[in-house]
């Protein structure tokens, strides 16, 4: 990724952007986010198969935005998140420059987010076979089997909210779990409280989740939360014509069209 390092350096030198967000080597063979503000820091930028964290979760943070215009090294899932965030008015061409990293590991500098969208739309969001098989199995369960499955899977969750912190779409200042007048979602991490938290989170990601798996990767307990969001992506495809983040198209969950399918109404 010499190309990336070179361009990041140029951008910082020219003052076009104030910070470049990318990956650097962390401890114990892991990677972490790099916020390069000096041209020299750009040399630390790396990109390889370990770089799976969704960097878009940083671009909505007030302290990062406060630095000034940002550039971001963005893989496909990160680009998807950027488009969705732009459609929700959280970032714009004014404060973000996208240095795309293609699936072939080459760099493309995009003129604007519309261009990012045109590029991203060449790729469908596809659910990996191992997940779709699992989901198919879940679908075949009786409601009570499925209930037990989830109670069991979610029961170890101790509400550290690492999933939320890692998710680019969980940028709200005050999450529903923190809403306490009234306390819709119970604070304690008992079975029901966990279920409510995850159901709530999943539904808030319907039509927004970009399938980056950052939540799942962040969970210290390896809870398969991404099964919930993947289920919704499949449903979106079956009932609403599929999900692709877009700054032009209407939001999947909040808009109604006369020709929408209604086969899910019982």
């Amino acid at each position: 990724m010499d190309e990336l390092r070179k361009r990041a350096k140029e951008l910082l030198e020219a003052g076009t952007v104030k910070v470049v967000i990318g990956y650097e080597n962390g401890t114990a063979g892991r990677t972490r986010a790099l916020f390069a503000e000096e041209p020299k820091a750009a040399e630390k930028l790396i990109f390889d198969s370990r770089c799976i964290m969704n960097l878009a979760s940083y671009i909505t943070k007030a302290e990062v935005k406060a630095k000034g215009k940002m550039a971001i090294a963005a893989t496909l899932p990160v680009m998807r998140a950027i488009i969705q965030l732009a459609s929700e008015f959280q970032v714009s061409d004014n404060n973000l420059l996208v240095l795309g990293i293609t699936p072939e590991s080459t760099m493309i500098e995009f003129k604007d987010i519309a261009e990012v969208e045109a590029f991203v739309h060449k790729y469908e969001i596809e659910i990996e076979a191992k997940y779709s098989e699992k989901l198919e199995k879940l679908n075949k369960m009786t409601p009570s089997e499925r209930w037990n499955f989830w109670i069991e899977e979610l029961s170890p969750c101790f509400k550290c909210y690492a999933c939320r912190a890692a998710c680019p779409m969980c940028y709200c200042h005050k999450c529903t779990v923190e809403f306490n007048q009234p306390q819709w979602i119970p604070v304690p991490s008992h079975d029901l409280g966990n279920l409510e938290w995850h159901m709530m989170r999943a539904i808030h990601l319907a039509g927004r989740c970009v399938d980056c798996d950052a939540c799942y990767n962040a969970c210290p307990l390896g809870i398969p939360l991404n099964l919930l969001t993947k289920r919704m992506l499949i449903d979106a495809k079956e009932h609403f014509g599929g999900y692709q983040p877009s700054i032009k198209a209407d939001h999947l969950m909040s808009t109604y069209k006369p020709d929408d399918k209604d086969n899910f109404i019982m």
Partner: protein
Amino acid sequence: MSKIGVFVCHCGENIGATVDCARVAETSGKLDGVAYSVDYKYMCSDPGQSLIKSAIAEKGLTGVVVAACSPRMHEPTFRKACAEAGLNPYMCEMANLREHVSWVHEKGEATTEKAIDLVRILVEKVKYNQSLNAIKVPVTKTALVIGGGIAGIQASLDIANTGHKVILIEKDPSIGGHMSQLSETFPTLDCSQCILTPRMVEVAQHPNITLYSYAELESIEGFIGNFKAKIRRKSKSLDEKLCTGCGLCTTKCPVKKIPSEFNEGLGMRTAIYVPFPQAVPNKPVIDREHCTYYLKGKCRICEKVCPTQAIRFDQKDTIEEVEIGAIVLATGFSVKQPDFFPEYGYGKYPDVITGLQFERLASASGPTLGEIRRPSDSKVPQNIVFVACAGSRDEAKGIPYCSKICCMYIAKHAMLYQHKVHGGKSYVFYMDIRAGGKNYEEFVRRAIEEDGVNYVRGRVSRIYEKNGKLIVKGVDTLLGAMPVDIEADMVVLATAGVANNDAEALAQKLHVSYDAYKFFAEAHPKLKPVETNTAGIFLAGACQAPRDIPESVSMASGAAVKVACLFSQDELTRDPLIAVVNRMAPPVYSSCVGCFLCVSACPYQAIEKEEIKNRAGEVIKTLARVNPGLCQGCGTCVAFCRTKSIDLQGYTHEQMYTEVMALLNEY
């Protein structure tokens, strides 16, 4: 500390016979925060209301729960009573012990328990109620009437005559609707055009009416008293101010073989045309789909012959933006067309026609100048068959309802035929004769008894051609289902009256409900026949269900009165049960993160963006804001907002949560 009063109504026997009202009152009296409870035979009666008023005064009640009927019936009554006693009306809630309890359950222990539960949850809710003030909004005293058939014409004239402005839009080049196509009208056999055209002219000349023909509703926003409409005025390719309506262009246009819509395809028209001689406005439009110039880039003959140079080939559609306070929907109906009746050979045999086509044949202004001549060879049919209920009352065809007008116009058609073709034989295949209406039964009897029309009770199964005759195969159910075959020269199908193709789309544009057949739905089948469920939008004529002229006109006058009532006020008061986006102290300002997904979710376009600026005028945060004038309190945004930044006044998160918890908790 709350002091809540619970008032349990027996509604005579309605609730009292099923629910133990005394026990409901007694148990409620023991609930936390309840200072007074009582049951009474008729709470909505004067003494009932006095009971509430005096309890408020004497016990110093802070909230009231009336356990009675549906809030749709009496909420205004009880809120008003509370207000009169000095309590904010929005501190009063109703538990529905009638529609939700006594009318749907058997008498018994569980039923009374349910009644107590309903009271309990509302007692808990009222503890979180807040005093609210009604919202006042101004009224724009101009009405929009959509559709210029007889219903739209009548509604426009009636409203205009009360002194208010009317904008009438008609999608076709002329107003008049179906009535302008009719020959004579039942039950009096007076000429349709003769009674209609004076009204059409009156519309054109009325100082309070602006007529936009060849125009359709593009979009609408706003709410009762304050709608904003965009009207698309389709290009007529004509400068209407210059055109004198001389008609020279229509005589010179070389494209002469376009089936005329007005004549139901039985006559031809030119590409630049006026649909019929008495059209209002009587000025032509160019049909761009058929005009040689638009198709091939050459011709412009009309432009050359026009003495006032009124033709405008490059004219574009224009969008007119208007502000209106009320809408009358009068878009009428359609009749089922060919392809729907393969078994009757419609579309295959030219002499199988629809009732509407028969009207054109019988009409003096029609293609045969009023002589009954069949389309295939212009011969006068000596044997004619009328088929009632073609499509109507037929589950298999998806139209189980009765189209209502057909029985009457068939009798009319058969009568007109007998008057015009002496010695001709006419047959009517019918299921039942539905002639309810003043002088209607007499009219049908006249057809049978005086004009000798043969009525055969039975359905026609098939029509086919043999040796130049149309063989109509049916049965006579009054003769033990005896097969009847008639050799006819012409067959007229009374095809079902159905909603317009664009009815559903229009209803969705206006947020008006519609029934399973896409006819617009009235707000109440008995008590609100001309209202829709959307405040400020009214219905007239056949857009609500198949209707004849007298009914369409009555509805139109009814709708006009509703509009006039609305316009008699300068301001409307609305319930303040609307959504509000929370506001907090700086630097947060609100828990709203400005994702504006609520903007797209709101069906009433009530949510706007609000910029919070610092002293230097820089935008520091962009938040959602609900426009109180536009919000209808539907709550869609509340359900949608992930950050729970929106609350619905009168149905807040706290109130809803408390209600649920009250239900789950033992008492």
